[in-house]
């Protein structure tokens, strides 16, 4: 769970958003299939689905803007031009890959290039 180890890794290891530090940029790989935050919820009001609706979809670029004290909970994440405050439990449901592991950090793919890729 130590973010420092993960950032140093050469292989593009998969992390969860909750492990990132302030200033880290990452690409969303996917969302957890089931998570603690969805306990007692159905598919209708799934919070995982909500994260997807907020833009946490595979390929989306995000950046950790700020983290609070005490384990960095909650954290502020910038994605798709909007900023969201997420608690640790919510951020733990988002699987990411650090941007420097996949591409130069400057490559903030515009939807046009993303669409072309898709």
């Amino acid at each position, binding site marked *: 769970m130590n973010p420092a180890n993960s950032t140093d890794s050469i292989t593009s290891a998969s992390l969860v958003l909750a492990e990132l530090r302030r200033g880290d940029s990452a690409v969303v790989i996917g969302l957890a299939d089931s998570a603690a935050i969805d306990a007692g919820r159905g598919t209708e009001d799934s919070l995982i689905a909500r994260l997807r609706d907020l833009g946490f979809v595979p390929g989306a670029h995000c950046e950790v803007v700020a983290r609070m004290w005490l384990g960095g*909970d*909650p954290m502020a994440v910038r994605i798709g*031009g909007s*900023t*969201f*405050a997420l608690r640790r439990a919510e951020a733990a449901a988002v699987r990411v890959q650090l941007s420097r592991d996949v591409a130069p950090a400057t490559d903030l793919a515009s939807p046009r290039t993303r669409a072309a890729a*898709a």
Partner: protein
Amino acid sequence: MDTAVESSPLRVALVGVPNCGKTALFNRLTGSHQKVANYPGVTVERREGERATADGRGLRVLDLPGTYSLHPTTLDEAITRDVLLGRLAGAQPPELVVCVVDAVHLPIGLRLALEVKRLGLPMVLALNRMDVARRRGVTIDVLKLAGELGVPVIPTVAVRRGGADALIEILQPERWPARTVTAPASHENTAEDAEQMQADLRGLLAVAGYNPPRSNPWIARIDALLLHPFAGLLILLAVLFVMFQAVFSWAAAPMDWIDSGMAALSGYTLEHLPPGPVASLLADGVIAGAGSVLVFLPQIVILFFFILVLEDSGYLPRAAYLLDRLMGSVGLSGRAFIPLLSSHACAIPGIMATRTIPNWRDRLTTIMVAPLMTCSARLPVYGLLIAALIPRSAVGPFNLQGLVLFTLYAAGIVSALLVAFVMKQFAGARQYSPLMLELPDFQWPHAGNLLLGLWERVKIFVSRVGGIILALMIVLWFLSSYPLPPPDATGPAIQYSLAGKLGALLEHVFAPIGFNWQISIALVPGLAAREVAVGALGTVYAMSASGDDVATQLEPVIASTWSLATGCALLAWYVFAPQCLSTLAVVKRETNSWRYPLIMAGYLFALAYIAAFVTFRVVSAWT
């Protein structure tokens, strides 16, 4: 379609993600012709407005709660879905949907628009904040977007006069002939479905040549500071300090005007009406009663001014972010912070402000603990008792009287946190309620929207004064005035009234916590509003003075006749006791049931009794 339906206004619903400028657009469309109520059976605010059209049919515009998706996670969002699906009992589905999309944050809004479009309702897309989008380098080919989406796309600038003219043009009812819409089915919420939607969205953005906004380095820097764990909290404290100062100092003068205005009106009434029950009812019941509540209007206006500015500018979600962890540890949401803060002025606006908490459970917890915050109506009582009973001695660098006052404030906050914590335990295995809070871009608050927002709050407050609060005041006036004392009465008139008899009965209940019969009687009219107890004590002790002079005259009487234990017990009582029918009336209104005000009154009275009992015993043993 029959003619009756044809001639009724076209039902238009505004849908959009939070912070997309939907409410500003709603204000632009309907002006001040708005009605704010609750949806039947739930506590979600329903905003509807009317607009005349050239053909005379008119528009009836419904501002639906903001949502990111039609798969709701909160009550508000469920309302939006249910209205669109025509599922909400007693509400007809809209004939036309205006989907408001913030051009600066096109992807998230357009995703919702795609979801709404699938429902099959006639739809127009309002591309709002086009001016900001252009400034920030966003490019959108509106025609191509409209072509690909298959609905009209109208650029708007909701905050600018005339910024919605093109939209108003297209909303002419004759352009939207009635057509039978089969109740649209809700679509599935599977991952495949969502992926298809994302693919559609990417395609749309590509066709429209969407270019995302440039980030503003200054805004980023300011945000980093405001969200900083240490500096951010310091700034928040400073903001709160200024707000508190303003609420108490700016409001002082207008409060005096209202106070003296009401006193003059009451005096004028007594002078010009033949003495008797009618004059007494008008002067002491209606005018004095309404006045004792209206006097808080300046504080409420100033408080809501600050809250609306903080909300409009985008700071409020950041404050919730900073405090989420702290408040989360006792089961409150970070969003509970502003309502609880407001409750220090008066619990009524505080409870009204809980509407910004989307999760019902979080909101209920906040409402239930709001009256524990030391409201300004307690100050006259605290002031009187502290001045009369607590010596002006120094404790280290502090003044003992000041320390006692601080302790009373702290007792309120600490007990609120404890009650919230206990409520969290009782809620059992409750569902996780998410933060997932958008921190919107900073923007200057718009004066027109501020004024409308303030006007709305003032209207709600004043209409409440005119209704239930006033009715309660009149009942209390009756209880304190009748039956009239016998001609040979020696005691104060209130002693012979129903309130007096009630007080005498209550004395048996209150004796164990050290209250004498005078206090017991004063507590009855004090139910209307806490500070009324001071005046009632004055009446009981047969004081002839009125207003501030009562306190001055009462001080020596209390100092010489009450024990320290009795005084402290009364202070402890006042920390908890729900001595404010107005608050309970607001809770009834906001929760749409008698259940919660009754639970609130029950638990607060129980806490008050226990606290006063313990205080009385401990101080008695100690002195």
